[in-house]
């Protein structure tokens, strides 16, 4: 029933988008559109996160006037707690793409919806949360290539993101080197292994739907990462294995599952993939609580001889992101993405 209503809403969103795009007249400025596509990879997840996923698509000025022209694509993954809409409010992606085009860097930019019931799918694969990894790495890319005039090859696809999205960018670089050729990770989260202890597990077990609804960032993030990385399809209603056993002790395997999804632990297994990247850029603000983690990733990539750029700047976790998308991220892809 609810699903049908949701599908209905999705359809009307599609209709709106269709209206917005209809007259193919001169396009003076970058245009941002909210589109909905169906992701097979997201079907059947236990939290009921929709398999009809939204994404912003920003086309550069002149897109309508040059029906023969094809463009590289920059994918941008948003952070935890947020939605693409919240990022658009802060970043004004259309203005950023507009400015880039005026500097000679015409690209399509795509910002998919990585939000979930617990406010973030960590661009991972989980039966509880859904397969956001394959949604972005497979379904979304295929859809964008079919619906827009892209240069449909890895050399012309860049992947970037901020915070949870920076994590997603690094993760997908390792899993989909055949799809993306350059990576820009801003203030990436979840690089070092997370841990849940007895107290944390107890708190999560006790959380009701109501608690979840009014939880703050810190209160929800641990449940959300467990749903993503320690799913348990046999444990409704949360479908999470917190590791808390009947006798009150902790199952150490839960922390192994969290560890298995930390970027620092994954990197050594995926060096052949990372080496296929034409360019990798990492950056973090010096007042960011994730500064040390990102510094450790920089050191690890150096240890393994994975060539990459590394920049620290005066700033915190979010205060300079809109500016750096314009001054760093888009110029980075201008330099590294193929234009034909």
């Amino acid at each position, binding site marked *: 029933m609810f699903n049908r209503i949701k599908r209905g809403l999705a359809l009307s969103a599609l209709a709106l988008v269709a209206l917005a795009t209809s007259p193919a007249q001169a396009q003076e400025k970058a245009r941002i559109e909210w589109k909905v596509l169906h992701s097979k*990879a997201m079907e059947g997840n236990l939290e009921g996160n929709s398999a009809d996923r939204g994404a912003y698509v920003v086309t550069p000025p002149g897109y309508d006037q040059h029906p023969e022209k094809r463009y590289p694509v920059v994918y941008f993954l948003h952070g935890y707690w947020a939605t693409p809409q919240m990022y658009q409010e802060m970043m004004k992606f259309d203005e950023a793409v507009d400015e880039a085009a005026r500097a000679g860097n015409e690209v399509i930019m795509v910002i998919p919806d990585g939000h979930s019931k617990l406010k973030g799918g960590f661009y991972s694969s989980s039966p509880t949360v859904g397969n956001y990894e394959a949604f972005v790495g497979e379904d979304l890319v295929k859809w964008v290539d079919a619906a827009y005039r892209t240069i449909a090859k890895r050399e012309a696809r860049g992947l970037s993101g901020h915070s949870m999205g920076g994590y997603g960018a690094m993760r997908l670089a390792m899993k989909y080197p055949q799809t993306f050729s350059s990576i820009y990770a801003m203030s990436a989260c979840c690089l*070092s*292994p997370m841990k849940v202890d007895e107290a944390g597990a107890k708190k999560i077990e006790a959380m009701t739907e109501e608690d979840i609804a009014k939880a703050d960032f810190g209160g929800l993030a641990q449940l959300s990462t467990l749903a993503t990385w*320690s799913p348990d*399809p*046999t444990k409704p209603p949360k479908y999470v294995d917190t590791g808390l056993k009947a006798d009150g002790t902790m199952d150490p395997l839960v922390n192994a599952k969290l560890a298995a999804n930390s970027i620092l*632990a994954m990197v*050594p*297994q995926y060096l052949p993939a990372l080496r296929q990247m034409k360019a990798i850029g990492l950056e973090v603000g010096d007042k960011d609580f994730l500064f040390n983690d990102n510094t450790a990733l920089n050191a690890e990539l150096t240890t*393994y001889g994975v060539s990459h750029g590394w920049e620290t700047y005066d700033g915190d976790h979010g205060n300079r992101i809109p500016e750096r998308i314009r001054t760093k991220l888009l110029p980075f892809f201008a330099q590294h993405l193929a234009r034909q």
Partner: protein
Amino acid sequence: MRGSKRVTRRLAALAALALAAFAHIQPAAAQEKARVDLVKVHSPAIAGNLEGNPADRTVYVVTPPGYDQHPEKHYPVVYFLHGYFVEPKAYAELFDLGDALTGAAGAGNDVIFVMPDGFSKHRGSFYSNSPTTGNYEDFVAHDLVAWVDAHYRTLARRESRGLAGHSMGGYGAMRVGMKHPEVFSSLYVMSAGGGSVKLITREMAERAQADDGTVDLSAPIGGAQGDLAQLAAWSPDPQRPPNFINAGLLTDGTIDPVVQARMAANSLIGMLPQHIRELQQYEAIMLDVGDKDGLVTDSRAMSSELTRFGVVHKLEIYDGGHGDKVKDRLRSAVLPFFAVHLDR
């Protein structure tokens, strides 16, 4: 000393190659029995590793009786990954491969059987990707499969490729299977456990870091070698000769949590929840273990994890230890399993 050993090994390899070539060139007379070819496959994925493991890998390829007489016929392929500590020769002899495959064909199951060399400096690669050991995972899934499809009359599609292994090789079958459902369609995992995580203790780390990198191939199983092999596979460090590993020992005597995380990240149970969709693509998954094998609890744990995630599979626990029944079971369980599940 080392150089001369290498020369001898290379000579032996050349001789083996020549023999293999000779076996091929032989007039394509009636092939009454299964034939065991010992070949070399060059693997770009292994090249350049820090341990100096050869990129030209020994591979046993067994073709079924009648292979020569039916040049139009194409066959399914069973890939088999051997266990830790030994070279594939030990498994070839243990299994009596020619006899096993002749027997299978006699029962109507003619398949090609391929066993690559998963040996490394510390006596086992764990079929993982590592700059220290080489990328054995990619060797198996990419280089080897491509080579076999190019050199033998295979049915070159996932539906006709099975992957199996014993012990470290069972780990490898599950690992490579999770990552490459586009290559293989059924898995048979023998005596691999998988339901737990090996963590590094201070003693292990101290012993591994004190190792001077000389390998005594006559040393018995156990000791530092197994730890070194797993650290080389899962916690490589190109900056730290002679073993190029990071055992994680910090100055205060604790172990770096990132190194523990790497061990966890390479455990089957740690990898599993991320690869449900991949495992669900398999036509069939089988686990087995002997009831006197120390890994029986671990195998049960792995099976209940698979069940929890709705991955259809079977676990068979039989009367036996870690290795004493493996020869029988290749004949009575593994080959018949693939006879049922591989497309012809």
